[in-house]
């Protein structure tokens, strides 16, 4: 079976007044249908940019893809025109973002926004050949169907009384409920891939738990493929099957979730896990990673983590380490695991 999503050696730059920001420097990522992949990393590591390269939502300029390929179910995405992308996004992708407040229009009711989403996805999804147009249902009928579907989506995402609440405005919903509305919207076109960019970061822990449970149940019910972007390792441990860890524009380690937490290989991954205050860590026992994330206008040479790495060697500042297998479905980009280094 071909991969659903295959990102190969993706390089992305942003041209700014201060210089060229090398945001992504050779990202490799593959997802198969049914995967729930967590993309983890700290601020500015490029996790959102990697995800946004799939629907091509990166503003260009200032952005520029200098090398690499993104293919979705075998189709090359980067060469698609904008109009082709519109149809592509509607048919294959759903996205949810961090902030449920700014992603809903406060001037329209949920009904208008959700029904619009359903209608748009349907219009893009099925091009009606000209001679059948006469048999098309009326606009009113389409709207009525779309509204039924919208209410169905609200039920699916756990919004009680969908048939009544659909007439409410976004401000009448709480943060968690708004995020559910956005998930409903993202599911409107039965997407092949759901990209969730920090879906619970703006929410309280109890609401976060509700939303994560919802995503897990949708994965089970609908067989969704999910790319979950987060900076929270706890969220990954709870929701994902596989994890890719990013640092300064590269995927530096990838493994099944249990393997990654039990047997992390890359020094950055180890540092990241050790930095989370967990149970059984006594006072003073928490380890941070010294230094801070590099400036990507002038990133460190070779492995971009080497100035902060406790195991730094001579080879590290030369060229970037290749990604090598370090276990069952487990790969890391570090000279500690390349032979002869």
């Amino acid at each position, binding site marked *: 079976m071909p991969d659903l999503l295959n990102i190969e050696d993706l390089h992305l730059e942003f041209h700014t007044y201060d210089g060229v920001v090398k945001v992504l420097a050779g990202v490799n990522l593959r997802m198969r249908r049914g995967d729930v992949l967590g993309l983890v990393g*700290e*601020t500015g590591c490029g996790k959102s940019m990697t995800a946004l390269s799939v629907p091509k939502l990166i503003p260009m300029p200032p952005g520029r893809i200098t090398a690499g390929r993104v293919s979705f179910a075998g189709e090359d995405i980067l060469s698609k025109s904008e109009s082709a992308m519109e149809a592509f996004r509607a048919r294959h992708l759903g996205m949810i973002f961090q902030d449920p407040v700014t992603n809903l229009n406060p001037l329209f009711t949920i009904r208008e926004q959700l029904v619009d989403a359903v209608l748009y996805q349907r219009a893009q999804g099925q091009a009606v050949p000209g001679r059948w147009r006469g048999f098309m249902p009326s606009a009113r009928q389409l709207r009525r169907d779309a509204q039924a579907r919208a209410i169905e989506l609200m039920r699916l995402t756990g919004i009680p009384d969908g048939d009544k609440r659909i007439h409410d405005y976004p401000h009448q919903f*709480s*943060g*968690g*409920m708004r995020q559910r509305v956005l998930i409903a919207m993202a599911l409107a076109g039965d997407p092949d891939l759901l990209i969730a960019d920090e879906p619970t970061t703006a929410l*309280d*822990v*109890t*609401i*976060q*738990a*509700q939303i*994560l*449970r919802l995503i897990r149940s949708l994965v089970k019910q609908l067989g969704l493929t999910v790319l979950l972007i987060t*900076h*929270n*390792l*706890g*969220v*990954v*441990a*709870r929701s994902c099957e596989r994890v890719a860890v990013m640092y300064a524009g590269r995927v530096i380690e990838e493994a099944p*979730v*249990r393997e990654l*937490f*039990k047997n992390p290989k890359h020094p950055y991954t180890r*540092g*990241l*896990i*050790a*930095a*989370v*205050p*967990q*149970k059984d*860590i006594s*006072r*003073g026992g*928490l*380890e*941070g*990673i*010294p230094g*801070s*994330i590099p400036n990507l206008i002038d990133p460190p040479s070779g492995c971009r983590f080497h100035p902060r790495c406790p195991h730094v060697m001579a080879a590290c500042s030369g060229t970037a380490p290749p990604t090598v297998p370090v276990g069952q479905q487990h790969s890391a980009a570090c000279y500690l695991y390349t032979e002869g280094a």
Partner: protein
Amino acid sequence: MSALLEVHNLRKFFPVRGGMFNRVLSDFRAVDDVSFALKAGKTLGLVGESGSGKTTIGKCILRLLEPTAGQIRYDGADITHLKQRELRRLRSEMQMIYQAPAASLNGRMTVGQIIGEPLWIHERLKGDAARDRVLELMHVVGLKEEHYYRYPHEFSGGQQQRIGIARALAVQPRLIVLDEPTSALDVSVQAQILNLLQELQDQFELTYLFISHDLGVVRYMCDDVALLYLGKIVEVAATEVIFEAPKHPYTQALISAIPEPDPDFQREEIIIRGDLAHSFPAGGCPFAPRCHADTLAECETVPPPLLEIERRHQVACHLHPAPPGKELP
């Protein structure tokens, strides 16, 4: 040892205005009858979700907000009604560190000026004497000497927070209110800052009131934890007790909701219904509409008092009545 800070029946209501002539329609009870004590050299965590009133409590203690009712005692003295002039002396005793490091630093001042300003205000220290003190403080929090003439925007979030910490330490306070000091930071930097705060506490015998919504951080930092829900304390106990044997249904739900970074970690997952609702049954338990436990009839009608059910373990829940004869006033 007596408590450094005591808070008795603190209330802070904000008027809700509207209607004709912008009348006061009702009160928003941000903090409603909160009492706790904090011993010198200890760390008390104030935990709650957004809107639970934790920051308001912190600001009332520093008198950055005027409490509506209640009493705040610092070092045995009532500071609730101190005048501005007397407050200034108190300000060198208690300081605050804020959540957004970038927003709490003046972008037009250099690091040296920012850290030096409290020295001038409180001790009339200037010139070389002030400079030496500032450099010493910068060294203590892990900033380098060459940062003295830089501006806040030239620093990363973690470094900015170090500047904020140095500024708070400048007046040699005894109590520091930390309002979500690391929630804007990445985990690797958060760990650095948390460790720094612990070192400073040991070095300068500081007392912390640690406000946070992150239970993992609270478990690491605090000796005692008070949980807030809609402006009321629902449970107070030592950190181990809160995390190992929570009694209040809200505490139990909150702790079960911590995403532990351990895929093998199994625990009963309590997912509570709904979200923080600001309309709750008048007179009843504020948590009753979301409670997952078997609620009693009085949950809807009688507000549960905060009772000491075991030594140093207070819970406000009708399901956990106090042992006979040990009721707190």
